[in-house]
């Protein structure tokens, strides 16, 4: 039997909220699938669309950008810029026909270990039926 498809997910987590939230999930020993590799950035506002496209080009099956809730940004308003920018990326990605499920944004505070766990669990579940992302992936 063929092995079940395991999606590869890149998660850009802001250092102050979402990364701390994922730490909390760890400290609380919550369990989620190991498909996500986190890349901690200073702020969700620093996630350039280039990172997202590049992750897909390099073969990510899903990309998550996660930051502090609006108003809670460690850098005051970085996540507001992120929200606008990511909205554009999301619309564009959908418009060119990439499955919209492959790209997500979330607000995860440092206290939301549970939410982070849930987001990853759901993300993996949603990606599994889609199979590998080949549309934007570079030829190997």
């Amino acid at each position: 039997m063929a092995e079940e498809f395991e999606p590869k997910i890149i998660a850009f987590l802001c250092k102050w909220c979402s990364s701390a939230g994922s730490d909390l999930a760890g400290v609380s020993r919550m369990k989620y699938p190991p498909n996500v590799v986190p890349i901690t950035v200073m702020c969700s506002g620093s996630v350039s669309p280039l990172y997202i496209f590049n992750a897909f080009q390099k073969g990510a099956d899903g990309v998550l950008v996660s930051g502090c809730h609006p108003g809670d940004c460690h850098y005051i308003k970085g996540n507001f810029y992120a929200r606008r920018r990511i909205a554009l990326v999301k619309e564009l990605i959908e418009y060119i026909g990439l499955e919209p499920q492959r790209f997500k944004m979330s607000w995860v505070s440092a206290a939301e270990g549970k939410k982070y766990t849930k987001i990853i669990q759901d993300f993996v579940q949603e990606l599994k039926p889609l199979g590998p992302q080949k549309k934007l992936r570079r030829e190997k």
Partner: protein
Amino acid sequence: MKKRTGVFVCHCGINIAGTVDVKNVAEELMKHSDVTHSEDYVYMCSDPGQKLIENSIKEHNLDSVVVACCSPNLHETTFRNCAKAGGINEFQCEIANIREQCSWVHKDKLKATEKAIKITRSTVEHVVKNKSLEPISIPVTRRGLVIGGGIAGIQAALDMANSGYEVILVEKSPSIGGHMIQLSETFPTLDCSQCILTPKMVDVSKHPKIKLLTYSEVQEITGYVGNFKAKILKKPTYVDPDKCTLCDKCVDVCPIVVPNEFDIGLTGRKAIYIPFPQAIPATYTLDIVNCPGLLPIACGKCIDVCEPGAIDYDMKPEIIEEEIGSIVLATGYDLYDKENMKEYGYGKYADVLDGLQFERLLSASGPTMGEVLRPSDHKVPKEVVFIQCVGSRDPELHCAYCSKICCMYTAKHAMLYKHHVPDGQAYIFYIDIRSGGKDYEEFVQRAKEEDGVVYLRGKVSKIFEENGKITVWGADTLAGKDIEINADMVVLATAMRPTKGAEEFAKKLKVSLDKDGFLSEAHPKLRPVESVTSGLFFAGAAQAPKDIPEAVAQASGAAAKAIIILSQDHLFHSPIVAEVSLNLCTGCGMCVDVCPYDALSLKDNKAEVNEVLCEGCGTCSATCLRAAIEVKNITPGQIYEMIDASVGG
């Protein structure tokens, strides 16, 4: 140059090693061309573990280190210090979080190991492109500036000065004292406001470390934490305080009478005046707006009678430039403009007063020498209606917020009224009573029980004057009936607003304001006295409505924060800051728009980073269309490689 990176994989007992094959992680990482050495150990953070890293650095001549262990929040500092001890720059050490983000959240050892390898490799990619950095050192001008001479400003200035730092205290009116000096007695202890404040005012004036600039306004603040420059406009008073003997002759001869601000228009003052008897500095101010003119032909009566020749019509505005290290903003509050409160007859009927006016009526030094008399006919009012929440808690028409102090001062007003007019009757219309605070609830109860103040829960629907009485229509929602009171006087607890002009002033200082126009603190819980701008602190009602003890407490807090800066020769700032590639920058200014710290500006058509202000969030870098700006040690080039490692390619 190719790096010589060491990778150190921690077992954390079974915390990591239970789920992650740490040996395998170490082996896999050895395949990386920049990894010179790789090993695992049971507890990296233990003394022997740290020693091991230190020794490996020396033994293998490493120039960078990745420790794969727990969250960087826990041991980043530990291992960076350890790297430093090994002789390499602390920024050449990065933490791969394979515990919280890996071993603790997974069960499948094979997959967890695979993920741990990716995380660690990603961190190696991060560190190999790290630059060695040194914290940015900022020299500090060890002198403070306090803007606003009310109780908050006075307290902050005294605290800072008593810690041994020079302080400049700037007050826009002719005397310090603020609103507190206008008050009669203070809740809940009913001690006299002037009695407790005047000594502090005197302290300010006498303090060798405090430079007091009254009748002055800060026009511009430039620079950054530790190195601000302030431009202060000192308006001319036309009176030389050194020559003036306070003989009062000038006031006697002055023909001009205008409403007295100190008594909120309940009395008049001359064009040359002392704001109030205990004013600091104790000197006259010639109010140029109301004076007929600075020409002896126009009037010149005061100059004629002034024997010491203290009056000088040629006095010019003066711009004073000061260098300071930290700033406390205590610009205070104003009461809600009477223009907005027409429905209560305020400004229309002489016997409808606001809280501050009533304070003056109660004050022993007030226009009535402490007797409660109606402004209209100087009769003792027998029935007084106090109305709370005038303009507050009314999101549709006025201010949405609670002005916080009105419940207490209204109780105090009613109580003091009863002390002055024992046979009078005090009614208070309220929505609900907010008396959180030490001895506050007891105080309100005392008003109700001992002084028989009648509390009516409900709103007032109409106020009108009839036959020399002020009729108040209202509802008692507890009793469920309409109420009509024919009062002699109505006192409105009007909302507190930020001082007029605060908005403009905030813009000048690039301080952000909240939706109500109060100063916006850096964090509502954890940084309540700090502004987003480093080195700038808030005290008093400028930040939000607050009572005296709160204002004083915050002022001391702000002073302490300001002193933290002043107490150092140099400030150190994280070197993880943005950097502009001048070749690529086209000067579009989008980064300047998004920077929350005003750390970016345009100079010669290129973006320029003020490293001291930059907090390294990187929003500028994602906004820049040309990749002309990036944050050191977390550059797009690093993320690019980290993505590679993270997808396992």
